[in-house]
């Protein structure tokens, strides 16, 4: 038989899980910040590219072009990070606080709520870090000058290494990735269940 004291302590401890809510809000805010940064980047990229047709010098155009490609990849990378932050926020809420009922009736639920457990949260963060590092490598590589054949060989070695690390991270997620067609959640909510939920309420 539990004493009153023990019961009070237990319910207090269990309610402490609501502190995860700060994490949910903060990663939501960080997601908004990243969306904003990426949008500003996109704006600057387009304004800089407006006078691309006016650059007549060949080598100068090549330079502008490589810079622009790097920036565009950076913008996409920023959006990816923002989306992962959003998925992170939803995942935290779902795992540790409670289920979002309205979300299950949407089709995009299984993509927005792609987090299945704590290890998933971690591996998602890891994958984003890998992606950002690779984009960084790409940016550095595109603005680099090569003089010798030896440099070229080194560069090729670097590309192979990056490819290998992509392969490893991909291998980790092997088979787990959800595609639009194999959306399992779509089948899960039938009309009958919705009715049952309404009855319960």
């Amino acid at each position: 038989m539990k004493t009153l004291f023990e019961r009070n302590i237990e319910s207090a401890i269990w309610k402490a899980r609501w502190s995860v809510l700060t994490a949910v809000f903060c990663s939501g805010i960080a997601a908004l910040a990243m969306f904003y940064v990426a949008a500003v980047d996109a704006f600057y990229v387009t304004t800089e590219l407006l006078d691309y047709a006016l650059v007549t010098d060949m080598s100068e155009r090549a330079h502008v072009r490589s810079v622009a490609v790097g920036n565009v990849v950076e913008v996409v990378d920023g959006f990816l990070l923002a989306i992962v932050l959003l998925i992170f926020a939803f995942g935290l809420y779902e795992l540790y606080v409670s289920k979002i009922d309205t979300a299950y009736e949407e089709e995009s639920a299984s993509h927005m709520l792609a987090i299945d457990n704590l290890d998933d949260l971690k591996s998602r963060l890891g994958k984003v870090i890998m992606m950002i590092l690779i984009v960084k490598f790409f940016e550095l590589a595109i603005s680099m000058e090569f003089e010798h054949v030896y440099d070229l060989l080194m560069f090729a070695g670097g590309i192979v290494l990056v490819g290998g690390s992509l392969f490893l991270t991909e291998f980790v997620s092997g088979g787990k990735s959800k595609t639009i067609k194999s959306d399992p959640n779509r089948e899960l909510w039938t009309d009958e269940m919705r009715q049952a939920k309404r009855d319960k309420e």
Partner: protein
Amino acid sequence: MFYVAAVDTFYVLEMVVEYTHESDALNRKYLRGETVGHVVEVIDGFLLAIVLLIFAYGIYELYISRMDDAENHESAEHLLQIKNLDDLKSRLGKVVLMILIVKFFEISMTMEYEGVKELTIFAASIGLIALSFFMSELSARKSGQLKTRQSDHGKRIASLKHPHQN
């Protein structure tokens, strides 16, 4: 840790507000790299906080008593996933690994690279990081502790269908 990470988020936000006014491309690039680094740091902080929470629940459940309130809740499986002492240890190990990787990431974002040789070395270190991820993931899968949200969902629907059983 929740508090620390929340404060970090606030400062990131403050930094980002000035982002539009930065018309110099080089400055913007620097600011961007810093923002990304801080954002990753924030997530890392939250991960650590959650692991601490799980740790606390695990210790309470293992060594003091079971929590009645928690037993029937749907997020119980995720918060009370510590089964024994080894579990506690491996959780801690994984978090430490994650923090180290984030640290590597931060350092590499602010570093300057010159020459193809350094580029190749950078690529090699990316490969090493990927390898350590791979190994930690492999060990997580081998221990078979993959509890999925999907299975939660199945149970939930079952309880909606047959409300009398609960």
